[in-house]
């Protein structure tokens, strides 16, 4: 019999199931994040074999794209970054804490799995160092190139980080000036290309520029990490429209990096479609860092769940949540 499979005609045996149709696409259906719709209705994975198709039905088999809200992007399910699955969508920087004890308490409270460490400011082998603490908590230390102003400096720092931290991952920062700490786009793209060529998993800190984000994605970065506002400013997301365009158009994970001041900023980033949020000062410089870390954890989860749940449209005028029609006249 004939069906429409992903927009083209296809012939399948009579009585074929949804599972057979998926098979026919050649998509690895064992993979997570494969979704099927029959005549526009999603068929849950558990019902693929039991759902038989009939003549002329329209079947769409799609692979969820990282950064989009496909199947496999459920509240509390975590996300994929650099080929690894992470439960927590909150990444915490280790800068600015008043003491190691406050840092430890905040990292535990945040339930983060990835923490960033400035290569320039931390000596990996030092006794009692931040890294000892990170190891003890079983977290992944992601080295960053904070403080680098040229591509050459950032590349060199990343290479040192690979030796010292025994990881190919690097959060790439190339700063334009020390007043704004905004990224230098040209140097950033150059450094990213070099590092990707050398086999690094590159996570670039970038401006909230959709075109630049695409350039970074095209060059092979594992994620793009746009700022919400300048590092440490706590001004939140100054250009939500740009951020939305980035999350809509970029297929690698989008991680908001910089600008978060309080929990609502982190929630907004997730509502705008970010896959994760990276923050440091908002927690480390809070009066109670562990308390703020809890708030951020909930905010990221709440924002993510809200995006998946689908918000109502904004209206100019009120609409009563309980309709007037059908109420008994008393």
């Amino acid at each position, binding site marked *: 019999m004939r069906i429409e499979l992903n927009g083209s005609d296809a012939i399948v045996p009579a009585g074929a199931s949804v599972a057979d149709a998926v098979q026919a696409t050649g998509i690895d259906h064992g993979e997570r994040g494969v979704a099927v719709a029959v005549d526009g209705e999603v068929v849950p994975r558990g019902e693929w074999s039991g759902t038989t198709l009939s003549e002329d039905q329209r079947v769409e088999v799609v692979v969820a794209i990282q950064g989009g809200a496909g199947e496999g992007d459920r509240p509390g399910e975590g996300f994929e970054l650099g080929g690894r699955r992470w439960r927590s969508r909150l990444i915490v920087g280790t800068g600015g804490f008043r003491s190691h004890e406050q840092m430890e308490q905040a990292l535990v409270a945040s339930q983060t799995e990835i923490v960033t460490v400035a290569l320039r400011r931390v000596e990996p082998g030092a*006794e009692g*160092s931040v890294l000892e603490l990170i190891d003890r908590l079983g977290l992944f230390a992601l080295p960053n190139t904070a403080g680098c102003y040229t591509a050459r400096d950032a590349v060199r720092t990343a290479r040192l980080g690979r030796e010292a931290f025994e990881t190919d991952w690097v959060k790439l920062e190339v700063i334009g000036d020390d007043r704004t700490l905004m990224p230098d786009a040209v140097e950033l793209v150059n450094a990213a290309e070099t590092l990707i060529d050398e086999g690094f998993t590159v996570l670039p800190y970038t401006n909230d520029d959709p075109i630049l984000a695409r350039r970074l994605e095209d060059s092979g970065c594992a994620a793009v990490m746009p700022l919400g506002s300048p590092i440490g400013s706590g001004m939140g997301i100054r250009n939500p429209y740009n951020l939305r365009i980035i999350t809509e158009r970029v297929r690698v994970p989008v991680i908001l990096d910089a600008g978060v001041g309080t929990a609502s900023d982190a929630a907004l980033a997730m509502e705008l479609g970010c896959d994760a949020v990276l923050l440091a000062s908002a927690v480390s410089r809070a009066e109670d860092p562990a308390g703020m870390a809890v708030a951020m954890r909930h905010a990221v989860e709440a924002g993510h769940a809200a995006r998946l749940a689908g918000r109502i449209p904004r209206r100019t005028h009120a609409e009563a949540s309980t309709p007037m029609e059908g109420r008994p006249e008393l």
Partner: protein
Amino acid sequence: MSERRERFDVLVVGGGPIGLACAWTALRRGLSVCVLERDKVGSGASDVAAGMLAPVGEASWGEESLLELNLASHALWPAFAEELRDASGMDPGYSRSGALHVALDRDETEELRRQHELHREHDLESEWLTASACRELEPGLAPRLAGGVFVPHEGAADPRALVASLAAAVRVGGGSIEEGVEVVRADTGPPCSVRTADGRERSAEHLVLATGCHSGQTEWLDPGERPRVRPVKGEIVTLRERGGERVCSRIVVGDRLYMVPRPDGRLLVGATVEEKGFDTTVTAGGVHELLRESYRTLPETAEMELVEIRAGLRPGTPDNAPILGWGPGAVVFATGHFRNGILLAPATADAVAALVSGEAPAIDLRPFSPGRFAGTPAVAAAPGPGGSG
């Protein structure tokens, strides 16, 4: 051993301001004391420190116990300095000029207001000043100033002068100080015995560990017994007047630096905070930042002579508070003073002298106990020999 064993009431390991202050205070209680210093007295963090006595300026969120200890020690300083001057015949360079915390732009003002609020919450002496009031106090401040906070009773001691006068007071008081002597093995007792690299043995009722940033590596303690101390690097620049007016007469604290004037015309500009292990390299970036900030705050600093640039290692702890109290056996820990070693010398010395005399210290040492850190084997949470916990 061919040599006769030397016996003391107290052996102090580490000849910095903390170890020397403990030694001097124990001597004044009539105990016999010997200080063992691996290098020269005062060759560690104190040789590089500015010596600020700033309990209010150091106040921070979530560090209430430390604030209380800092305030208590600050209150002891005037008498401590006076008695030390009398005992040693030398001046520890103690002064109480007050500290002016300044904000140079809107962002710094917001941050300073937040700190001022914290001061008020804790009833600390701290006054918000307008820009012009700040410049009346210190006319050398940059005109772009946005406002400031004046803390009247804060001051400084000159750490090198302090070490010299403490060492003199210990010797005058009948204590011995041995330099260039490294402890290689120790029995934590009681009674304690110590073997030094030169093969000599000394014994004592109590051992005081005051080796600052090195105490976390104490070879003669089991790894689990060592205090949780790590080195935290700081770079500091010393400038000097070339005649003419002083650029400032009070301590000036900015968002990213402090400047401490000395009576002899020097101005100490510090300090970076870096987690670099035992590295003491002076870096161009660190110095640049200090000089840029000092120029931004007090423009006249540009005309001063640059006399010294140093990097030192503070003894940092996980919660920024010192480690004071009973270690294993008859060992007393007096270490981990981080940014407050000079400030905390009197209170530390009093507490340690009380412990080794079998008395209760005047301050509650529980928040500073060596065993307080999670994941660290608790060392002698119960009172040690003759002590009171």
